[in-house]
């Protein structure tokens, strides 16, 4: 059995989660402070992948990445980069696709922290960044873990977007979810079952881990 789709999926989920951690957490912090109409719109856009069919996202990405016009053309002409049918393209798509799972839990956890925490830190002469790093983040560890695990698991489950822009290339864009689909299409149910079992086991263990970790936090993993 060819395990490359499994490795590719884990690699995609790992890189996506790392990028989301770097980009998403400061973003969540910005969103958690105050409400302007602009912030509401930004948050709505970030939340869209939760409710949009992945095929819609895939379709827009297909148009955006096309080397014939717009962004894709500019990337193609300036940097000779083609995002469609490539691993970096899948990473970018996954970052957009899993963004709400990183930002949601972190933002709501930051909003639930007592204001006195940050204020005490400022009174002691700490900067905004120091306060965020050394006071706020350590206080929302469970939510950080939830966000990381959910982003990772959600990327493992990505299918529709990859089907639209991936091109099913072995070792490049044939991730495990696509390999399952491909095997079913070929009526190779043994392979389909193997991939499915591996995916099921990985995600199940991850979800259980969150539940166990959050048992003492008395809230659901999606909170």
């Amino acid at each position, binding site marked *: 059995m060819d395990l490359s789709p499994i490795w590719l999926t884990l690699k995609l989920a790992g890189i996506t989660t790392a990028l989301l951690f770097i980009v998403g957490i400061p973003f969540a912090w910005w969103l958690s402070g105050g409400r302007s109409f602009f912030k509401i719109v930004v948050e709505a856009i970030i939340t869209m992948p939760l409710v949009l069919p992945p095929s819609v996202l895939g379709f827009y990405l297909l148009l955006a990445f096309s080397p014939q016009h717009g962004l894709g053309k500019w990337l193609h002409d300036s940097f000779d980069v083609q995002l469609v*049918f490539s691993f970096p393209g899948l990473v970018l798509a996954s970052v957009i696709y899993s963004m709400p799972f990183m930002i949601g839990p972190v933002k709501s956890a930051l909003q639930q922290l007592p204001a006195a925490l940050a204020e005490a830190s400022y009174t002691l002469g700490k900067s905004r960044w120091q306060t965020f790093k050394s006071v706020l983040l350590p206080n929302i560890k469970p939510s950080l873990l939830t966000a990381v695990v959910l982003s990772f698991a959600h990327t493992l489950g990505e299918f529709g977007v990859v*089907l639209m822009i991936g091109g099913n*290339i072995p070792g490049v864009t044939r991730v495990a979810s696509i390999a399952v689909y491909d095997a079913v299409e070929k009526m190779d149910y043994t392979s389909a079952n193997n991939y499915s079992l591996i995916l099921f086991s990985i995600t199940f263990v991850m979800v259980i881990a969150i539940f166990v970790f959050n048992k003492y936090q008395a809230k659901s993993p999606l909170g």
Partner: protein
Amino acid sequence: MEHIEYHNKLFKYIFFLPAICLFTYLPVAAQNVRVAAAANLQSVIEVLQKDFKQKTGINIEPVVGSSGKLVAQISNGAPFDVFLSADMSFPETLFKGGFAAKQPVEYARGSLIICSSQNIGFENWERMLLTARVKKIAIANPAIAPYGKAAEEVLKYKGILDEVKSKTVYGESISQVNTYVTTGVADVGFTTQSLVKEAGSKTDLYYKVIDPKYYKPILQGMVLLKHGIDNRGAERFYQYILSPAAKSIFASYGYRIQ
């Protein structure tokens, strides 16, 4: 108490509503013919549908997908009456499995083309595929789509199959290859000639018909399925597909007719 009464009523309504809908819908559905059609037929099937409706007044509901997927669905009890495949072996599989009422018959032969949304010149396409100008070549998944298999045979015949492997992207069916070609995300694609006719007014396409001697003929077969035995419309549609009227429509879409 009153609101419990109300809930019970509501529950009954909710429970019976689908049943009522189903019963009112059934007699209408019985006259329709569900046709499972291979992806390469997606444009020609609409024309056949209109023509058949005009001649007989019978509605067909086409469901278009890769032949392999449709066979899997039919084998698992999908309620299709007629299956138009992109090859002979898939209908054969269904017949052997006891899902078809009759032996498969050939209704058309497909023509493979090489196609692009840019005017890159196809005089010497096998050499062109190797140049840096062509970054991505789209073919349908050879394991499940006969046109993809034919494309692979052509590349093998030309001796460039291994060299273009790194540029090849696989559409899950010929429809996805068509999407890749018309949106320009793939520089070239191997697809069915009927795409050119379909896209005619919408996009400019440049193409060359591949010489049929480079690949095994794409014999496209049809079977009347067990599900369609009691449906008179299904039998009529089956006969219609083999009639001169349908044959000339197929021919106008680039299919070769024996």
